[in-house]
């Protein structure tokens, strides 16, 4: 898998050198071994900081909103799940597609730093990745894990494939997920309303309103977020109880419903480990049930079921029973 990093780096260098692109959007080494961050590289010397490995979880597509507006083309590396967000943003006219050179890159799932920490790994010196297992080097010691144990939640149920790219870097077939992504939604649906309220109250009460979920979400791309807009009349409003503030997440889930590609970035970046993506996944499951299977970002033209009307649309009464 280390070969992927070399191939990606080589591709970036070549395309920069021959003038195909003016800059490269990729991942940069952080201060610690696991905290890779999105970065733009302008030259071969810049690219020294470039890295693609099992910690390159960040979805780069949202950064293209700004990067694709600038002079010259930008090279972007897209993992399968990122390519859905890319399509969705192209559909919403948020990315200038002509200004982007897309390189699809193989992904066998990215690691969940929180899970590694639970296993006692605080410092990462290196990582050796295979399709089904991974070895993390920490303070000179090697720790081998079966992938399932340490993958990000979104990766262990990932069924996505590379959709949109000018070129592709891939060496292996994609591993097939062992779990169904809607299993957990079914568990939530099986709860009583009181149980479910208790579950979400418990989870959402951990929220510190750092806004990381909103900032990272590719679907949260309004020019001015309603929560930052004084004119919206909701800022600085006194809460009726301590939990009201946390309904932010419910509002956000409605906001991205039908546009969310289930990229899972919200949960990945949450410092409080709130499973935020479950709200979105519940919406996706409902949309599938009401309007037929729909995957946001599968292409960049199809109208979403919530923003298009057809005479064949199900009446809620037909789906949920009751009188017509």
């Amino acid at each position: 898998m280390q070969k992927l990093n070399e191939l990606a780096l080589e591709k970036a260098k070549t395309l920069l050198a021959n003038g195909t692109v003016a800059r490269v959007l990729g991942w940069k080494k952080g201060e610690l071994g696991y905290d890779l961050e999105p970065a733009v590289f302008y030259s071969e010397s810049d690219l020294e900081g470039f890295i693609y490995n099992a910690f390159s979880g960040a979805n780069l597509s949202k950064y293209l909103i700004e990067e694709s507006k600038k002079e010259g083309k930008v090279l972007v590396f897209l993992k399968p799940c990122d390519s859905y967000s890319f399509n969705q943003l192209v559909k919403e006219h948020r990315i200038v597609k002509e200004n982007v050179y897309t390189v699809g890159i193989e992904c066998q799932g990215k690691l969940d730093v929180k899970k590694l920490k639970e296993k006692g790994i605080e410092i990462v010196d290196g990582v050796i990745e295979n399709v089904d297992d991974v070895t993390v080097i920490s303070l000179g010691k090697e720790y081998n894990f079966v992938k399932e144990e340490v993958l990000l939640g979104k990766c262990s149920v990932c069924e996505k494939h590379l959709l949109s790219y000018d070129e592709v870097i891939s060496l292996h077939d994609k591993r097939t997920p062992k779990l169904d992504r809607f299993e957990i939604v079914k568990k939530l649906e099986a709860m009583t309303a009181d149980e479910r309220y208790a579950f979400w109250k418990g989870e959402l009460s951990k929220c510190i309103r750092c806004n990381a979920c909103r900032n990272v979400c590719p679907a949260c791309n309004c020019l001015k977020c309603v929560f930052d807009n004084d004119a919206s009349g909701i800022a600085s409003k006194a809460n009726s109880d301590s939990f009201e503030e946390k309904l932010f997440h419910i509002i956000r889930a409605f906001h991205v419903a039908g546009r969310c590609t289930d990229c899972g970035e919200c949960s990945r970046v949450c410092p409080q480990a709130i499973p935020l993506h479950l709200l979105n996944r519940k919406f996706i499951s409902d949309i599938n049930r009401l309007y037929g299977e729909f995957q946001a970002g599968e292409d960049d033209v199809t109208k979403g079921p919530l923003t298009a009307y057809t005479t064949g649309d199900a009446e809620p009464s037909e789906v949920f029973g009751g009188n017509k």
Partner: protein
Amino acid sequence: MQRIGVFVCWCGSNIASTVDVKKVAEVLKAEPGVVISENYQYMCSENGQALIRNAIKEHSLTGIVVCSCSPRMHEATFRRTAESAGLNPYMVEIANIREQCSWIHKDMEEATEKAIILGRSAIAKLKLNAPLTSGESAVVKRALVIGGGIAGIQSALDIAEAGFEVDIVETSPTIGGNMAKLDKTFPTLDCAACILTPKMVDCAQNEKIDILTYSEVESVKGFVGNFKVQIRKKARFVDEKKCTGCGECMQKCPSKKGLNDFNMGLNTRPAIYIPFAQAIPNVAVIDPEQCLKLKNGKCGLCAMKCNVNAIDYTQKDEIIEREYGAIVVATGYKPISLENFNEYGYSQYKDVVTSLELERLMNAAGPSEGHLVRPSDHKEPKVITFIQCVGSRDTSGCGKPYCSKICCMYTAKHAMLIREKYPDTEVHVFYIDVRTPGKNYDEFFRRAVEQYGVDYVKGMVGKVYEENGKLMVQGADLINNEQVVIPSDLVVLAAAIEPSPTVRKIATMVTASIDTNNFLTEAHAKLRPVESPTAGIFLSGVCQGPKDIPETVSQASACAAKVIGLLAKDKLKCNASVAHSDETLCSGCSVCANVCPYGAITYVDKEFRLGGGKTELRRVASVNPAVCQGCGACTVTCPSGAMDLKGFTTGQIMAEVDAICKR
């Protein structure tokens, strides 16, 4: 500084009997911004309006709240009142304290409290109102009539008479509808064809009327005055312009086993056919399911026999696009399917027929050329039993809860005609009630009983079964309080009628509402019975509710009068409550344009200053106010909150909600 006037209406006792109107006026007077608060018996009366006008002038009001009936009733009235006193008409808010308060509550204290809250909510909204002005849009001087039965025909003739162009779109190969199938018509017993076919010919000959038969409305876009309609002209495989209707092809066609729809499937017809002798247009059509040439390429006899080369096996469906100012829905009815009524043996016994089938059996142009015989053995029936209300007034769920309205009269007609022509035939009628209001209707029914000796039995039929070659009709005679069994040769079921199944699709296309029985809803049950609540859409005939021919024709003409009133205008005042986009928030995602049913939203690349001398070209939504109808779909769809609706801004709605929730 706002100066608001509040006017609380009693509506006689409609509001005042449940709401303490004086208290409402008094409490609302204390609201910030309110300078005058009055109550009056009838605010919509001339005196009431004068009170408002004077108050506006005297107190220099900037806006008014009228606490009265639904805005659907008198919003336009009070806007005009305000305008005549020099106030912008959009500075008027209505608090509905009648339909949404006094009429639905019994407790005066509660209703009064609610009326006060509704008033406060309207005041809160008014404070955010801005004066609006409306634009104008042109009217396309052409009407579309969907359905070519007697309703559609009459509406089209009347509209054309006023000098406007009309298109009739009819799904079947001829106009005429159900009426063309009838034998005689009550209460005068003149022959249906004799009075209908001249009207059909008038339609064909009128140069203002274009008849598109074998065609369906595919899509409707636009709005009152400016509808854009796509019509699918189905392939009939015969060139309408060339065909002379000679009928030679019908003689030669070897595939003769198609069920004849016009005769209710009582006999067969060839694959190429003209529905009936007086069909308009008098042009053949090929049934592609039945035609040997179209099915397996072998035959072509009709093309060989056609003297004018009208047959074209390669003909394809054609989509026509036209513009209209008004649309008349006249989609009519069909008898219900009798599958839920096995007790009457309709599917089991050939000699149990529906009334519409009986019409064909008695019609000179029908399968038995007017000689009344039973379908099973073509013998004359000697005992005929009619069963009324088959599926009508049925609350069991098998049929329809409503009265089909026409059955009592046509059953009396059938009974009378049979007794007249075949005096030795015994005729029995089972009924729940006989309902014959209408000019000369009850006299007609009484003639059937008194003069023609028809045996009316009050009671329901339990079942129909066969015994010794007779159909045994077992029912209750409620007047003699006994069970009766009538051995009959023919049983006739007065099946309920229901709206044509196409009406749901049409209603969706034109955004007209339908009721639980699929009848189209009128704008006002009493005062606007031929208009749909959707502007520019009009209702003609049974699509709105069961009715007989005289009533259908009256309604069709009334409908035409409304259409003419609309088409006679050169310009329509546009709605001032239109959407607009806040360009500082719009991210150009196109979702609003996707949901806009009127195509009012386009996108433009616009330069925006970023500060520091820099600019940015950004794609933003732009609303055409002449096309926007203010439905608000874009405002709720916009993910960024950039779209807003003038007069119903998100801020105004939230202010209303806040005012209601405030304790």
